[in-house]
């Protein structure tokens, strides 16, 4: 008798566990679906001809309609909205240049604040943090007339400089946190081996800090790639438009033609998603580094 009862209890427990497992996986799938579905919908719409986009009951396109994408690179589009690849190239240029500047400048000051006894370092650090809190629009307004006076107004270089200054405090915050945890024994061993103080930075700390630098670079790249406000206010001719700005222009002017609009959205998203897949490990590392900051 007892054995039967024990068996039944064990079976009931196992069934409960299975139900819990299954419901866990269902929940995960639901959450993942909820997150991915808008992007998926964008993709599906981009593959539909205009007639089908107006019918929301059609979820899947009837066939793979690539003309929306072709249209973006066609002459008619270029006549109306400018040469599409140019916007990508502008964005790439601006983002890479910003990453370069921010990483180099930021690494130096982050190391100084973290390891070298800079006077007032705590106030400098706090100062940068609060400067980071200044709203973008105020900065854009003030920089607008300043740049107009020195001729940097409608240029990509001006945009790069502004973006660099805007995201610098964030990069400093990230890298200072990392450098502060850098083991001092490694630095000391470098000095014992004959490095000068500055040499220690370039030859010991930097090479071993690659993960932190990569993580910072990723965040800065995304920030620069995605930024709308500064390009909207500081760039006036379409030659110098970057991707987000071009997207806004299309949304305004292409209003009802959803097919090509969604195709453009997908094209603008592909580099970012590609980035995410490719650098997933580093991003995961980034998220673990942060909470301890």
């Amino acid at each position, binding site marked *: 008798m007892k054995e039967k009862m024990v068996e039944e209890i064990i079976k009931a427990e196992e069934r409960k566990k299975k139900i819990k497992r299954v419901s866990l996986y269902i929940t*995960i799938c639901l*959450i*993942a679906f*909820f*997150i*991915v579905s*808008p992007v998926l*919908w*964008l993709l599906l719409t981009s593959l539909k001809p205009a007639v089908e986009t107006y*019918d929301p*009951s059609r*979820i899947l396109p009837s066939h793979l309609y690539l003309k929306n994408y072709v249209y973006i690179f066609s002459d008619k589009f270029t006549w109306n909205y400018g040469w599409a690849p140019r916007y990508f190239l502008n964005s790439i240029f601006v983002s890479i240049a910003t990453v370069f500047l921010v990483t180099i*400048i930021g690494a*130096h*000051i982050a190391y*100084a*604040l973290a*390891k*070298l*006894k*800079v006077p007032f370092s705590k106030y*400098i650090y706090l100062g940068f943090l*609060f*400067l*980071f*809190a*200044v*709203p973008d*629009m*105020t900065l854009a*307004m003030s*920089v607008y*007339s*300043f740049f107009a006076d020195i001729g940097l107004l409608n240029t990509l270089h001006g945009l790069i400089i*502004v973006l*660099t*200054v805007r995201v*610098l405090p964030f990069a400093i915050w990230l890298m200072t946190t990392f450098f502060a945890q850098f083991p001092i024994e490694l630095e000391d061993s470098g000095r014992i081996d004959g490095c*000068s*103080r500055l040499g220690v*930075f370039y030859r010991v700390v930097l090479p071993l800090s690659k993960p932190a630098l990569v993580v910072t670079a990723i965040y800065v790249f995304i920030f620069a*790639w*995605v930024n*709308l*406000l500064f390009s909207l*206010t500081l760039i006036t001719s379409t030659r110098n438009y970057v*991707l*987000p700005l071009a*997207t*806004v222009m299309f949304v305004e002017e292409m209003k009802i033609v*959803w097919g090509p609009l969604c195709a453009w*959205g997908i094209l603008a*998203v592909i580099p*970012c*998603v590609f980035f*995410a897949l490719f650098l997933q490990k580093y991003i*995961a590392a980034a*998220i673990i580094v942060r*909470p301890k*900051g």
Partner: protein
Amino acid sequence: MRFLKRLSRFLRRKKEEVVKKKLPLTSDPRKLGLLLALPAVIITVIVLLYPLAIALYESFFGGFVIGRHSFVGLENYIKVFTDSVWRSSIFFHFLFFVCALGGEVVIGLGIALLLNRKFLGRGVIRTIFVVPFMVAPTVIALMWIWILEPSIGIANYILGFTLGLQPKWLGEVVTARFSIIFVWIWAKAPWDALVFMAALTGLPKEPYDAAKVDGASRWQIFRHLTLPDLKPAFAVLFLLRGIMLVREFDIPFVLTRGGPARSTEIMSTWAYKVFFKFGQMGKGYAMGIINTIICVAIIAVIYYTTRKWGQE
């Protein structure tokens, strides 16, 4: 007594040693530190502080972009405070801030707690969760404009045959405001969930096992163990997301352009319109300065309240 004399002599000699040694520039840590910090400080002063100072100065002058200059004292500031759209923009920005920040943190935490166990496909989940973070807010807004299209968007189609509602999402005040908050939460909660998941996996297990043995209920464990353990994560999130929220522009701007009858204007979108579209430079500068003070004040409050949390 003698010990004190010896100690003071010793210290004086040490001081002379340090003063006499003129360390070369790259070896003295303090000088080197200042040198390394210099480029960042210089570029920030030139491109950020100097223009801000100009803005402050110009805010006391009137005139349009192509008009003439004249000192008007505090008139621009009075114009800002009496501007009903500005007041409504501050109100909605505050509402947006509280709802969006609260929503994303709560939902992110909820998801993290749900997924805080071993399952297959963890890497896939991580990749999927990162996607909204990598997609440009502009494109996110584009996506949701399309989904929330009243007549041919899929949201209303689904709502149509399930609940029979066909709201004009971005065309009416309440739904437009709700949509902005919703889209923000959709875009940011997954990343918060990742942060919480990483924080949860780093927690020591013994207190939890001990609590379970002692018979604590799940709610008690959550309230007295989990939440305090997550304080550093909360601190980081509130500070960072708070800063991102007060500076926000992209999503509200592209989604509603300031919304039905200016109801979804936030600080940045309205300042943009006043300065760049209407050309009211003096008022724009004044608005910018006031908005800056408000933003820095909010962030200061968050920073000082969460400072202790991060030092666990």
